[in-house]
């Protein structure tokens, strides 16, 4: 039986305006969770707002039995969630969904995160660092104050490249612009036309950013995985609300469910609309 955990809040920190890190005691979920998966969170205790909210798993501490979420307040549900304090209880379903694949052989790993998109990729970076692998991490945000966890990521052995829309830190522009420049330079320096397929890109962020990222990696010949965000109902594949258009199927395109077939999909499979 998949548990519906009644998780106790260990602590909740506001790390920037509207951005919260929530620590929950949920040992079974912590044990089972894989990077890219999510928990389906009951934000309030009444019938309004009604639905659970999918929140990606940001990190786990399996020894302490902790599941850590990082989210931005985007509406009524997350606003209620942000009011939870130490000792409060929150109903969680999970871990749910199909997460990022962890490279089995030695490949060069690129991580590209836009804004809050770092939330699930942080867990991914934590897992690969534990197995001794390092990644080149491209972090982008509107402004310097929203470049979350850059030092923690650096300290766990990854290389970090920064971009801000306002130029307050790192590359002045989008994270995909930064990444594209980097890939282009790398290709030029090595005298290659395309990257070899011994690389992999992992992306999460706004859909416009992911669409651009998909174009860049397609041109460079690098396979990638992206984590999508869709409005979700049940979280278990029953309601077909969180449909994402993907390539394949009888008509060349088919709707797949972000909650069970995703939220992580191979980038080249996604039909961007």
């Amino acid at each position: 039986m998949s548990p519906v955990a009644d998780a106790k809040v260990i602590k909740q920190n506001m790390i920037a305006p509207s951005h919260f890190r929530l620590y929950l005691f949920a040992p079974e979920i912590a044990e089972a969770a894989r990077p890219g998966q999510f928990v389906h969170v009951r934000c309030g205790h009444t019938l309004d707002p009604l639905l659970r909210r999918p929140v990606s798993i940001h990190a786990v501490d399996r020894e302490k039995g902790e599941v850590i979420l990082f989210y931005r307040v985007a509406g009524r549900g997350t606003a209620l969630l942000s009011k939870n304090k130490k000792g409060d209880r929150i109903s969680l379903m999970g871990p749910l969904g199909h997460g990022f694949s962890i490279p089995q052989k030695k490949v060069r790993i690129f991580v590209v995160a836009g804004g809050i998109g770092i939330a699930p990729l942080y867990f991914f970076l934590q897992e690969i660092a534990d197995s001794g692998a390092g990644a080149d991490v491209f972090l982008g945000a509107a402004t310097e104050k929203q470049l979350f966890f850059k030092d923690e990521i650096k300290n766990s052995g990854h290389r970090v490249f920064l971009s801000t829309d306002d130029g307050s830190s790192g590359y002045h522009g989008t994270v995909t612009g930064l990444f594209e420049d980097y890939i282009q330079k790398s290709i030029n320096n090595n005298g290659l036309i395309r990257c070899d397929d011994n690389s992999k890109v992992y992306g999460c962020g706004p859909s416009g950013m992911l669409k651009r990222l998909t174009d860049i990696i397609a041109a460079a010949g690098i396979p990638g995985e992206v984590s999508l965000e869709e409005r979700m109902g049940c979280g278990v594949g029953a309601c077909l609300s969180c449909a994402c258009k993907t390539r394949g199927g009888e008509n060349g395109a088919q709707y797949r469910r972000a909650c069970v077939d995703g939220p992580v999909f191979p980038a080249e499979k996604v039909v961007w609309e």
Partner: protein
Amino acid sequence: MSGVKPNLSVNVGGILMKNPVTTASGTFGFGPEYAPYLDLNRLGAIVVKGITLLPRTGNPTPRLAETPAGILNSIGLQNPGVERFISETLPFLADYDLPVIVNIAGDTVDDYALLAEKLSRASGVGGLEVNISCPNVKKGGMQFGSDPTMAAEVTRTVKASTGLPVIVKLSPNVTSIVAVAEKVAEAGADALSMINTVLGMAIDIKKKRPMLGNLLGGLSGPAVKPVAVRAVWQVYREVKLPIIGMGGITTAEDAIEFILAGATAVAVGTANFVNPRATMDVLEGIENYLCENGIEDISELTGLAQKS
């Protein structure tokens, strides 16, 4: 309290259910989705997602919008089609001991006939729920359900095409649900399901456009419960068919309201999304209520509020 366990079994138009709790079509997938959360064998029956003759890709996204104590959906009957349903999906439920009720939807009256024939030949189908009330498809759907004559024609055709019990699912988006129910009963329906979703709409005031890709959608969840209880109440008075009551049932108390209004069985829908064990909570709550009130058989409760 007598200490004797009350009898929870019910007969819905020839479908024998060990208890009155089932699932609302479209909210419970085909079974495997919720199997990790509860023992499906404890359900009185399962009503699976609506099936059409050919596969459907469904409506454009967004397909879901949250509204006060409810949701609007416009899934658009996405499903694998009847052939793949029979060969790939139905076998999973063969391992369970519960009636499988298949919700069927067509563009034409002939579609319903073909669906009924194909499903009658498949093993493991316990009954058909005729969907003449889906608000999210252009053809068929609610078009049949809002016209008593058409509703009767679909019912008659399905009855002629199957030996399975036939439940007709009614739309609340009509002037008189009783008028439709009467015609459907005359046409030979074995039972009624009510209500399907209430046609609705929501607009995103920031983007200044409708929230749903399909513009309009079906409202479900606690917000529609009074509409559904009213529909059950009105139809129970005039039509002598067993009713599966649904529309916003979240707790046992909600379910008991429907039964008191005249429902023989109840279906849990949107609440499954909030609490994947909602059906079990409803079932246990009904049993406790019967014990506490010294009621030995659930059938004593059906329509009891009509007699006061």
